């Protein structure tokens, strides 16, 4: 069942030299009970997408398409209506989760204030329970964020973000600054939230496919503001179809390859500038199998497997 339906969403940035088309016609859904992974390299539009959901601010603007959450198009809501949806329906663990809490307020106070904004009282028993889930003692409540280590602050933020049992939790690049051992704990805690039905669905955003593989049910791969491939995680990793996905996977040094034995190759070239993106497929100038048509027309969506779609001219259904 779809909780959120995004249809042909366009999010641009206003600049002096025109609009930067950071998200340009993206369609996908978030289903109940799944972890949707969104992967892509820098400039693919991941952070724009996140910010559009939780913090749409100038110079960003909505340039088209719809986002349907429980039969309501949230792109048409007023500022106040949106405010109510955030936290209760869509919540976020931000990229900067290690310093998301104001340094001069005790964690207890921060929780109380945010809850009050949504007309709720704090159930401290619940809070303590949740803290325990992320390995924090209840003493943390009476501490200032500065008294905690970066990792503890991040986990406290995870608790704060999920106190209202949001329908959708967005985890935005929360593992990229972490050490490998900590990455694993954080992901296990997130899985705990899913298992205990604290959050219905999760969007996990990262540039690291191997992390995504550990947690996501489905994956959407973005390139230059467009979706290139979307499908079940396992299938996309094992049987990638889009040339970009393939090249990306091939360029990852995994623990089974050594330079001396097998030489991996990166993807030559650069992503296009989104002020004036190229016509046709945005990947065409780096694509090993591109034909003339790819430079002219936008690629169609092709179904390549159960629930597995690819935007490419050179792929057969």
């Amino acid at each position: 069942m779809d909780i959120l339906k995004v249809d042909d969403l366009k999010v641009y940035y206003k600049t002096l030299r025109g609009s930067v088309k950071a998200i340009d016609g993206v369609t996908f859904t978030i289903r109940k009970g799944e972890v949707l992974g969104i992967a892509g390299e820098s400039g693919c539009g991941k952070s724009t997408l996140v910010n559009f959901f939780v913090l749409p601010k100038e110079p960003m603007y909505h340039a088209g398409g719809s986002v349907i959450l429980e039969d309501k198009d949230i792109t048409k809501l007023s500022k106040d209506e949106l405010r109510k949806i955030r936290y209760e329906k869509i919540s976020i663990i931000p990229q900067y989760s290690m310093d998301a809490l104001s340094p001069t307020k005790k964690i207890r106070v921060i929780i109380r204030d945010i809850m009050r904004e949504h007309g709720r009282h704090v159930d401290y028993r619940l809070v303590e329970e949740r803290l325990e889930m992320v390995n924090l003692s209840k003493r943390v409540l009476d501490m200032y964020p500065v008294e905690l280590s970066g990792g503890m602050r991040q986990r406290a933020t995870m608790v704060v973000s999920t106190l209202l049992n949001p329908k959708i939790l967005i985890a935005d690049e929360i593992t990229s600054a972490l050490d490998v051992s900590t990455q694993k704990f954080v992901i296990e805690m997130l899985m705990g939230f899913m298992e205990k039905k604290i959050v219905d669905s999760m969007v996990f955003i990262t540039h690291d496919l191997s992390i995504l593989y550990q947690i996501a049910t489905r994956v959407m791969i973005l390139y230059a503001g467009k979706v290139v491939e979307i499908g079940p995680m396992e299938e996309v990793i094992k049987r990638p179809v889009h040339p970009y996905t393939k090249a990306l996977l091939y360029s990852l040094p995994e623990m089974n390859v050594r330079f001396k034995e097998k030489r991996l190759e990166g993807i030559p070239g650069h992503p296009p500038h989104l002020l004036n993106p190229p016509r046709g497929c945005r990947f065409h100038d780096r694509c090993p199998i591109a034909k003339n048509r790819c430079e002219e027309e936008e690629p169609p969506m092709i179904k390549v497997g159960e629930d597995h779609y690819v935007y490419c001219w050179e792929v057969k259904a």
Partner: protein
Amino acid sequence: MKEWLKKHDTLYFMLTNKRFVGGMIFILSMVTLAILGPWLAKIELRWYLENGVKEALDPTANIGIPYSPPSSQHWLGTNSFGQDVFLQLVYGLRSSLLIGIIGGGLATFIGLVVGFVSGYSGGMIDELLMMLTNIMLVIPTMAVLIIIAAYLPYRGVMIESVIIGFTGWPWTARAVRSETLSLKSRGFVHLARISAVKPMRIIFGEIAPNMLSYVFMVFILQFGGSILAAVGLDFIGLGPTRGTSLGLMLQQAVLWNAIQLGMWWWIIPPGAIITALVAALYTVNTGLDEAFNPKLREM
């Protein structure tokens, strides 16, 4: 590409920033007034010059009838001694601007050197320099100025600027130090070091150029601060022993009961010109801040 646009954006935002442009226009017109002042005064005091009153262009000369309100002969009237207020004003403006440039320049310079050296070298030198800076910060500089000025038998605009410059640098040093600290840990400084570039060249060739816009803003604030410090000193009676200045004019106005006598033409212009000048400097500074800092730009 993106960064390149941003570079030119700064210039664009500077020139389209109303605060920057407006403030700049005012400051430049004040500079022009200070430069062209004596020439304007020649028009103003033509009557005296034609009648052979040689000292007509000496701002301390008692040429007119005391207590005269503004007229075509004395554009801003005369004071209790018959000195021409407009003439005093343009000369006072000159010395104020001079003090701003020299005092502000000196304070900026010392602050930069102390900040750079302290931030770049670290360790003992840093500890000592920061100790000195913190001491200078807590000592009320005005009090130091007073005590120095009080014992100086002769004081000129130069000496005044120098003592203001020598006491006004600490906050600049502190700010420059922290800026330097953050730049110092950047890769390009490491890279220069492993290219065997000498420390002085790293400071002035690599670090300092990155702070140009910042230094410019600091100078503007120091410029305004020096002008204010100088008028305060003048007002206390520790200004230049010869010549005139805006602060001195106001001191005399108060001493000779200009308030009680309602001689507004003696009281308002000197203070208004200082206020406007300093406000314009602050405005330019905010304008620059908005232009340099993308977060503050209004789309």
